[in-house]
């Protein structure tokens, strides 16, 4: 192996003037302060803003009032796309639901032949209409990217104002940084052919968010 690490650090150290103890406490303070920069403000309520921004990036939305309504909502969406009544999910809360008899629910990570997936968002960012997903046993990352039709369940109370709120929520969970954190804003797209936007480049062609309204909210 080479000694590039030592060389690089020596070059950097010879060019940045800093006195050991002080510098160490400066960066420690900075790393633990989690100081926020300017965060854009918006006039809308969180749910309204999230839906507005999601629709701007060609996402679609369905609001339901209870998890038990999910199978019907998913089935209806798949019918509207004219695709088979079949999903892959790894969320226990979802595959244990009462699905219709002719509806196929696979409980695993995604494989290439899966057309439609259903998973659960960790949270959402209202500012930009963004879903936040974490890699975990129940929410494997492949579900978010392999299938053509990506259906994501989001609980209304998990919609936050900004990306900075997500960092606070993850710190509050006190489980360290998840292996993958995906911020997803709309379906996959490309503009690499003549600057013309085309959906469904490599990832999902469609993004459908099913929001479970918070009890007591209207």
């Amino acid at each position, binding site marked *: 192996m080479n000694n590039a690490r030592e060389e690089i650090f020596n070059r*950097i150290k010879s060019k940045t003037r800093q006195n050991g103890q002080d510098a*160490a406490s400066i960066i420690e303070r900075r790393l633990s302060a989690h100081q926020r920069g300017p965060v854009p403000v918006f006039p809308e309520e969180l749910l309204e803003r999230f839906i507005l921004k999601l629709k701007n990036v060609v996402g679609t939305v369905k609001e339901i009032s209870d998890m038990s309504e999910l199978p019907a909502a998913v089935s209806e969406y798949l019918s509207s796309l004219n695709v088979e009544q079949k999903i892959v999910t790894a969320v226990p809360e979802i595959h244990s639901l009462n699905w219709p008899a002719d509806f196929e629910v696979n409980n695993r990570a995604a494989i290439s032949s899966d057309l439609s997936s259903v998973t659960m968002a960790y949270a959402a960012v209202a500012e*930009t209409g963004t879903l936040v997903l974490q890699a975990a046993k129940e929410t494997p990352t492949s579900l978010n990217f392999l299938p053509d039709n990506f259906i994501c369940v989001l609980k209304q109370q998990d919609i936050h104002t900004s990306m900075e709120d997500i960092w606070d929520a993850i710190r509050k969970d006190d489980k360290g940084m998840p292996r993958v954190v995906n911020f997803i804003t709309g379906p996959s797209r490309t503009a690499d052919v003549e600057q013309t936007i085309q959906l469904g480049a*490599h990832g*999902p062609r469609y993004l459908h968010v099913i929001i479970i309204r918070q009890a007591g909210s209207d």
Partner: protein
Amino acid sequence: MKSKSHAFKQQAADALVNVSLQKALLNAKDGFIVKRKKAMDELPEFERLRTKAIEIKEHTLSHLDQYLEYFEQQVIKSGGTVHWASTTTQAQQIIVELCKQANARTVTKGKSMVGEEAAINDALEAAGFEAIETDLGEYIIQLANEPPSHIIAPAIHKSKQEIADLFKDHHKKYNFNSKLETIPEIVNEAREVLREKFINADVGITGANFLVAETGSTLIVTNEGNGDLTATLPKTHIVISSIEKVVPTLEDTSVLLRLLARSATGQEITSYTTFFNGPKRNSDIDGPENFHVVLLDNGRSNMLQNENHEMLKCIHCGACLNHCPVYSAIGGHAYGWVYPGPMGSVLTPIMQGLDEAKDLPFASTFCGRCEEVCPLSIPLPKLLRQHRNHIHHDKLNTSRSRLGLALWAFVASRPALYRPLSNSFIRALGWLGKKSGRFSWLPFASAWTQSKDLPAPAAQSFMSAWTQQQAKKKSSENE
């Protein structure tokens, strides 16, 4: 790739008469500018974000070794490994070695400009691996065997027809034979071909837009989702990035992300922004088993203390390219290496040598739009001017231009000589050009008059007009 920056002048001349390139440039130019402007108009916090972003970058660069060390510790904690490369050759060796360890045959790649800088594809192919770019733009130029012509839109110079022709030639072997006519058809065929590659890849290589010291995260922003498939499906995920990309905290990253997408494509945020933290954990049912980060220096550490340190703040948004009148006229390939436009004209001479790229600092009108739109306010014209100074100092320019500059300096630094000389010169020119108001030919000015007329100057210099006006004022006051 090997730099062709020394041939800039010829390449620029060729680009200007390349009809399909000119058509593509025209098509692309306004899109980026209009979309960026719209996004910025909707962001009243822009200037405050810019000020904060500059603070973040300056702070990090002045403690770069500590943040890199902290980042490395966090990557190790999450089960990954950090490899260090002083040179592009070292980066190639490390990546080839990692692919060998993984017993790889197929390697998929997400878009990475540092990967382009280190010519990773060439090294992988020379070592017998199948290396496939998966960003659609990068895939297209890989098939065409060309370098990217834009840092965020690598195939911006290619027309739909040229892409369809490339696919026809290269996709035969996968039994795709239909004639592609529309953009959706082109995108769909690429999706199907590359889907197989994603599934069968043994190693996935992505870049990183930022490295977060606090958590040891590497992150990518994409719209296609190719970077995520590249990172998620193969057994080994290798991240290639460079040392200046580290930022302290997740909050700092959020500030830079708000500026990046808006400056680049006019989006508030790209479709996908993903933070990666090490390999698959015990409970995970997908994800890579091995996670490596390769950090390249390639001259960056030497920039820290000199005048070029400003360039280390660059977040590679491409706004300076989109707003540059020179880039808009000649496209990216004329610049001869991987980084084009104003940022490339600063970086290429640093990384490839001033002698190799001595024409690039002159590929600027110094109009200042690049600095104006740069989300980090990098003084690109100042950095280009410094390159010009060094070129003159190191005698890399022609003896003719040196003589011209010496004569000019001699006269211009002596007001008693300059004023009468310039006065009579301007008077003569003004008189000669009185009739038509312009010159279609002048001695020593053929470079200008070849392509356009030179306007005739006013018959009087500012200084002499000012003196006259002041004298008049005085005499009227005395009356």
